[in-house]
């Protein structure tokens, strides 16, 4: 059971090549804009026809290029929450929710009332989409999908059209509404926070290619690949040079005994938040301290970002390390010319490609 997909689609000079097998979980698809996420969802929903491959939902083939199967979007039983919600502007909330129900359905009215109650839309039933807020529109769109009892729900960048202060609230709200939904959920987003909060397993897309990463939390903790680390928000990378018994991190000027790693990593990564700053000199193995010149700083509401040039002579000119710290921890100190950063070994991320 679950969703199995293995498709190829060529569009101009863009190739979508996706292969995954998801079993009853919330799948998050993380990718930059233009990586083919939305195109994948449209293939799933039957709006775009792939060139070849197959899509199987809960054992039911929706598309199979070899057997010539291509089920119409109307019959796929897939709920699709569009980025801009795609509510029909000339219909009221109640009409929007009910239009997908077959005419023959005798309980039509009862179903509409029930779902409006569940999504707290009863008071809005006679309003038109333009008369209600973005969050309310999203609920209507979700109700319009859920009333048809889909086998799978596709969420296409569901919160990107909303103001920041609403996002957190609505993410939680949508999770609550979906808590008793048994089908698969596929969430597409370029926001790592959204993916981290709302998905169990993670797939990463880059240039139309997909890679399945396992559970979301594990994938964020140890991303294994450089591009995944980047997508999950890791800012600092260094190439590794093999010095016999050591690996030399070229961008940082630090060396590590090979025995420290199980495999043969190609890069090391460390997140901007994971450094520990020291304000005076301390005794510590030299490969755990990175000394650097502060190039510039950026001040946000709650956070300071430092751009630092490591001082080690063999580090190239354009090497730059990003270090972020909460302002509450920085305690209003003056911005120094140089910083001593500790790299805790447990936060080093070995990357293999």
């Amino acid at each position, binding site marked *: 059971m679950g969703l199995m997909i293995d498709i190829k689609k060529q569009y101009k000079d863009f190739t979508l090549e996706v292969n995954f097998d998801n079993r009853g979980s919330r799948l998050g698809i993380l990718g930059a804009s233009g990586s083919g996420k939305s195109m994948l969802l*449209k293939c799933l*929903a*039957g*709006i775009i026809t792939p060139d070849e491959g197959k899509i199987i939902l809960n054992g039911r083939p929706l598309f199979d290029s070899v057997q010539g199967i291509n089920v*119409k*979007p*109307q*019959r*796929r039983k*897939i*709920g*699709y929450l*569009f980025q*801009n919600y*795609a509510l*029909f*502007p*000339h219909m009221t909330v109640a009409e929007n929710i009910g*239009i*997908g129900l*077959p005419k023959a359905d005798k309980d039509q009215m009862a179903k509409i009332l029930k779902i409006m109650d569940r999504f707290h839309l009863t008071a809005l039933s006679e309003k038109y989409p*333009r*008369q*209600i*807020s*973005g*969050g*309310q529109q999203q609920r209507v769109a979700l109700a*319009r*999908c859920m009333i*048809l009892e889909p086998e799978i729900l596709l969420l296409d960048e569901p919160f990107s059209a909303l103001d920041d202060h*609403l996002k957190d*609230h*609505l993410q939680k*709200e949508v999770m609550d509404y979906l808590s008793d939904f048994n089908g698969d959920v596929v969430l597409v987003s370029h926001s790592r926070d959204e993916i981290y909060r709302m998905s169990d397993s993670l797939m990463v897309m880059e240039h139309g290619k997909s890679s399945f990463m396992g559970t979301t939390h594990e994938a964020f903790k140890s991303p294994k690949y450089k591009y995944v680390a980047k997508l999950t928000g890791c800012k600092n990378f260094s190439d590794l040079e093999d010095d016999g018994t050591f690996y030399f991190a070229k961008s940082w000027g630090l060396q590590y005994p090979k025995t420290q790693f199980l495999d043969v990593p190609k890069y090391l990564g460390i997140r901007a938040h994971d450094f520990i700053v020291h304000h005076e000199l301390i005794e510590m193995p030299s490969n755990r301290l990175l000394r650097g010149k502060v190039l510039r700083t950026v001040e946000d509401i709650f956070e300071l970002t430092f751009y630092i040039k490591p001082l080690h002579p063999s580090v190239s000119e354009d090497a730059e390390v990003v270090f972020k710290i909460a302002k509450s921890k920085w305690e209003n100190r003056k911005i120094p010319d140089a910083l001593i950063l500790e790299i805790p070994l447990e936060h080093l991320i070995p990357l293999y490609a």
Partner: protein
Amino acid sequence: MSFSPILISLKTASLAILITFILGIFTAYIVVSIKSKGLKMVIDGILTMPLVLPPTVIGFMLLAIFGVNRPIGRLLLDFLGVKIVFSWTATVIAAIVISFPLMYRAARGAFEQVDETLIMAARTIGLNEWKIFWKIMMPLALPGVLSGGILSFARGLGEFGATAMIAGNIAGKTQTLPMAIYSEVAAGNMETARGYVWVVLTLSFFVVVSMNYFSVKRFDKSKSNASERLMEGEEWA
């Protein structure tokens, strides 16, 4: 001043718009759903031709189709006993052909204005193409389609060149208002011509105003909604 040209014109334009309206919408729908861009451009070009060609060229082509010595004209005459050329039907045919591109283009534009994701959404929630057309496309495209219809009606009412060639200028039969004005001026009856001109002016003014009414109504709607939202405040979540 005889009333017959006024009646003939109104009858002709009314029947013509009835047919043009349906035909234009139907054709626009088909063309919008054509996937190949090249084919779409060629078909659109052919369908728009009557708009850019001189009406006499259209008249010539219609004669070439319906003339009694031409295959189709001959067929109609021999088997149905219908003679198109120089009949009232010919005035209607001329008005349809000339006004069709306006209707077709207006409807096509209105359909293309409809947000494509609405159509996609409609499919994913199970609506068939028939229902999508009547419940989503038509209501959303209606203002554009209606103003296209009014414009086509006005064009049909004013048709002269093609009508003159295929229907002639037979008083009480094919003499429409523009024909009558031409004849009266040619005969030096400026007074009568002036009367017809006033009728045409009044009709046309009425048509343009009613067209504005449709677009203004649309504008008012969006305006009142904006103020409505301001009044209510944005109720979030």
